[in-house]
């Protein structure tokens, strides 16, 4: 196998694997449900992206024709990940999950849950 291709694939894979792991690590480490939302939705997009591109490259190389269908998975993930995060955030808000104490603007939680404009005294003024 072409060493360059192999190196490329390996690097992509390692990047992907790293981010997958970090995402899941974040899921464990981060202190509250709102922060935990960040880790997997983001890290897995790049993590998955890395692995998918690696797969694309490798398959294309090995099979001798363009193997690009992995892009479709990427597409799906990119479209759906934010919605998943949004739905989960809605759920967390609905369940009135406690945010980390030092979280800023916690008063917005109530407004967000009720889907009302921000209405607390210390809300920043926008024109």
């Amino acid at each position: 196998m072409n060493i360059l291709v192999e190196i490329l694939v390996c690097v992509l894979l390692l990047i992907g694997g790293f981010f997958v792991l970090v995402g899941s690590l974040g899921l464990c480490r981060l202190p509250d449900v709102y922060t935990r939302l960040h880790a997997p939705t983001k890290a897995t997009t790049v993590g998955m992206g890395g692995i998918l591109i690696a797969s694309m490259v490798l398959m294309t190389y090995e099979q001798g024709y363009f193997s690009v269908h992995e892009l479709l998975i990427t597409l799906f993930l990119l479209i759906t990940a934010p919605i998943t995060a949004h739905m989960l955030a809605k759920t967390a808000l609905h369940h009135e999950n406690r945010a980390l104490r030092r979280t800023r603007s916690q008063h917005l939680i109530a407004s967000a849950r009720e889907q009302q404009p921000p209405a607390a005294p210390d809300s920043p003024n926008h024109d």
Partner: protein
Amino acid sequence: MLNTTIFIVSGAVCIALVLNLWRLLRGPDLSDRILALDTMYINSIALILLYGMHMGTNLYFEAALLIAMLGFVSTVALCKYLLRGDIIE
């Protein structure tokens, strides 16, 4: 080199899966658990792709694709359930 890399990355994904399960079992809120499950879906896509690369075959692509599609539906439905109870209303 490739095989070693795949092996290492698979290991990373496995650890990730275990961590996900830990979060799923630990909670504390149901939204945490659903988040963990969703992450598991995505990580298993990675696992399947890695396996496909290891075997040098395209046969498992559809499985990965379906997990991506169906995992989303499943997560959304679970969230909808927690929000509204009735998922199809």
